[in-house]
């Protein structure tokens, strides 16, 4: 076993990401079960049953960030997937198609061979949850039917009225029971309730360290750049029910606190303005978006997106667990969504907001106009939006992004100098 004691948080992040993929590949080789999972589907059940997990959204983001998306998008395109659908889904369905071809023919397709992303094994079953979009239902239906494998569904109904009613939590908790029955059937053995409780407790420890990191961006100047959270997010997605996430996040939070004490901040030089980024990262152009802000003296200290994994609940209490998985801000009414974002903006002491109009994500785009309007009435902060996409590099224009953030920067400057934007 590799000794991880002296690794930095960054090294741990890389190490455990690779380890997770390796575990899945090993599991497949040894004839053990592999599951593909939606990013905020409950991981506790499968981990309690020692199933190796792969998270296609994270994998797709990785392909995007390594500039490998176009090849697999083309495969999805040939299968009849419309360019208008989610690019994570298309990347993954394209990739799945290549894996399927390989499994059927014994030959590795060229596009798979040269894909820059980690190799992943085909799943034996899938688990999905619609707390971050209904696309995850459609996408996983297709995976299940294309591979002829079982699909575990955790449906968390859209919370049009807050607070979340008990009957909604009851419905979700009943599905947890059903998921356990399905898992027992798939695994061919009884569910391990003792281990499940331990996994729930582990998940809570991971989430606590994750929240500890996120809260550090409240310091001014900030020891944390929000873009780092986009990177570390891989482990809150893929390993929150294992100690990998806890270990890495604790290390990172410790490092950041130490930096804070020493007066070392995320922005080399002097952070001038702080922004909230609303929406998913533009993975294929992550560097451009990061540098664009940096060059203007701006740092990202607010993002509601990593907060999706603030899954705190009471272990042993299924209703409490149900609530944590359904209360995600994009699964709630506009008023609550605005409230969550408002806290993110004030928590990060932000001077402005950037809205990502994400071609791939209708749910995170179609309320941006109203959200921005309501928030501005409340906090009087300037905002801009730009057109982008989480993994399809063709739907982002660097020039438009630059112009928009320059305008935001200008407005934030004026605000700071006391000139009103209204």
């Amino acid at each position, binding site marked *: 076993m590799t000794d991880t004691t002296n690794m930095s948080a960054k090294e741990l992040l890389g190490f455990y990401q690779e380890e997770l993929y390796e575990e899945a590949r090993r599991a497949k080789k040894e004839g053990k079960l592999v599951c593909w999972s939606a990013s905020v589907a409950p991981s506790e059940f499968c981990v309690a049953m020692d199933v190796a997990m792969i998270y296609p959204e994270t994998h797709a983001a990785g392909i995007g960030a390594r500039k490998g998306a176009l090849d697999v998008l083309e495969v999805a395109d040939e*299968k*009849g*997937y*419309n360019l*208008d*659908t*989610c690019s994570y*889904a298309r990347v993954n369905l394209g990739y799945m198609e290549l894996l399927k071809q390989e499994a059927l023919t014994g030959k590795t397709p060229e596009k798979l061979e040269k894909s820059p992303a980690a190799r992943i094994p085909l799943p034996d079953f899938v688990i999905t949850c*619609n707390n971050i*979009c*209904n*696309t995850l*239902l*459609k*996408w*996983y*239906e*297709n995976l*299940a*039917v*294309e591979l002829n494998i*079982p*699909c575990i*569904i*955790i*449906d968390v*109904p*859209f919370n*049009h*009225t807050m607070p979340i*009613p008990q*009957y*909604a939590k*009851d*419905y979700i908790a*009943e*599905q947890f029971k*059903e998921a356990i029955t399905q898992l027992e059937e798939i695994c061919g053995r009884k569910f391990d309730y003792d281990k499940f409780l331990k996994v729930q407790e582990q998940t809570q420890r991971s989430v606590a360290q994750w929240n500890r990191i996120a809260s550090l961006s409240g310091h001014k100047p900030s020891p944390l750049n929000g873009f780092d959270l986009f990177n570390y997010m891989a482990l809150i997605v893929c390993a929150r029910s294992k100690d990998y996430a806890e270990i890495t996040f604790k290390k990172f939070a410790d490092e950041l606190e130490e930096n804070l004490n020493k007066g070392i901040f995320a922005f080399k030089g002097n952070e001038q303005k702080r922004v909230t980024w609303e929406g998913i990262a533009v993975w294929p152009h992550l560097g451009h978006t990061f540098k664009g802000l940096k060059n203007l003296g701006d740092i990202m200290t607010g993002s509601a997106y990593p907060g999706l994994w603030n899954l705190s609940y009471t272990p042993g209490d299924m209703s409490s667990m149900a609530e944590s998985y359904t209360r995600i801000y994009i699964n709630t*009414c*506009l008023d609550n969504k605005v409230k969550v974002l408002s806290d993110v903006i004030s928590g990060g002491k932000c001077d402005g907001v950037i809205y990502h*109009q994400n*071609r791939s994500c*209708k*749910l995170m*785009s*179609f*309320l941006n*106009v*109203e959200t921005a309007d309501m928030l501005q009435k409340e906090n009087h902060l300037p905002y801009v939006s730009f*057109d982008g996409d989480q993994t399809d590099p063709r739907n982002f224009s660097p020039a438009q992004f630059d112009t928009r953030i320059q305008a935001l920067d200008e407005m934030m400057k004026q605000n700071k100098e006391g000139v009103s934007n209204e």
Partner: protein
Amino acid sequence: MSRLETIISELSSISNNPRKAMEDYKKETGKGSVGVMPYYAPEEIIHAAGFLPVGIWGGQKSISKARAYLPPFACSIMQSVMEMQLEGVYDDLEAVLFPVPCDTLKCLSQKWKGTSPVIVFTHPQNRKLEAANKFLAEEYRLVREKLQTILNVKITDEALNQSIETYNENRKAMREFTDLAANYPQIIDPKKRHAIIKARFFMEKSKHTAMVKELNSELKSLPVEAFTGKKVVLTGIMAEPNEVLDILKDNGFAVVADDLAQESRLFRNDVPSGTDPLYRLAKWWQEFDGCSLATDAKKSRGPMMMDMVKGSKADAVVVCMMKFCDPEEFDYPIYYRQFEEAGIKSLFIEIDLETTSFEQTKTRVQSFSEML
């Protein structure tokens, strides 16, 4: 004009003029209308309150005001609904019932730009579990409570069970109609077929049923003539604007069955029997299959459509793809592959309510017709 022609003309006129239908209803009953957004809202609850449920399906429209509130990649139907909200088209509605079975509708339910109160409810998607029925019955209970308050009427279980019977009667008549229409394509062309079905959205259902039943018996009395054109099944959200249906007709196509969310998907199943009306309505959703908006890990839509093709002796399927409708777009690659494997021919046309130019559709339909 024969009785048959008169009925068709009356239903077509209602389907083209919902506002007049609302006004007539008000004159007759003194009661107003409640809007029903797509998809699969329990209209029966509105009917039981004595109000007129009115389907909201957008319309052929150029989009300008809605651009400020929706990016161009929102589906065509919601673009046009948003445009009409901003024009105040729906402001005479007493309330609007708003289901949210897709991400676009979740967002739209939070940004109604008209003046009517909006009642949002969520369909469960893990539909085959008993817990889903309980959840949905509870959502419907809240819908009923909200409607009672807004409309200031009591909606009893008894009235609701009666409304369910009225609706089931209509569903039965509609199934008979679509079966009959397949035998009389010379009389029921694609546009007429659509209008007769669409009139359901703007009429008190027992009235619609009575007219459709009469129409059915008129049709049955006529001899079935040989049809030399091609028979197709339509699938998708809807097959509008009318120009699309005219193009089908002009190229000798008859619609012999449909799998459209605006048409047969609404009446291919009855609401099951039982005593608790809200539970019965919830159970309908559980039994319903073959729609992109009703999660189904078995994806039975393709096989269901293949049965439809077989049962109606259709020559092909016409995919009416609502522009930017991601649930429908996700279903397409799966059933397309299944069609290919089964040797069923299909034509893909894009449904865009904003467009006024149909040249591309015309060309595609023409060449498809030649290919068959």
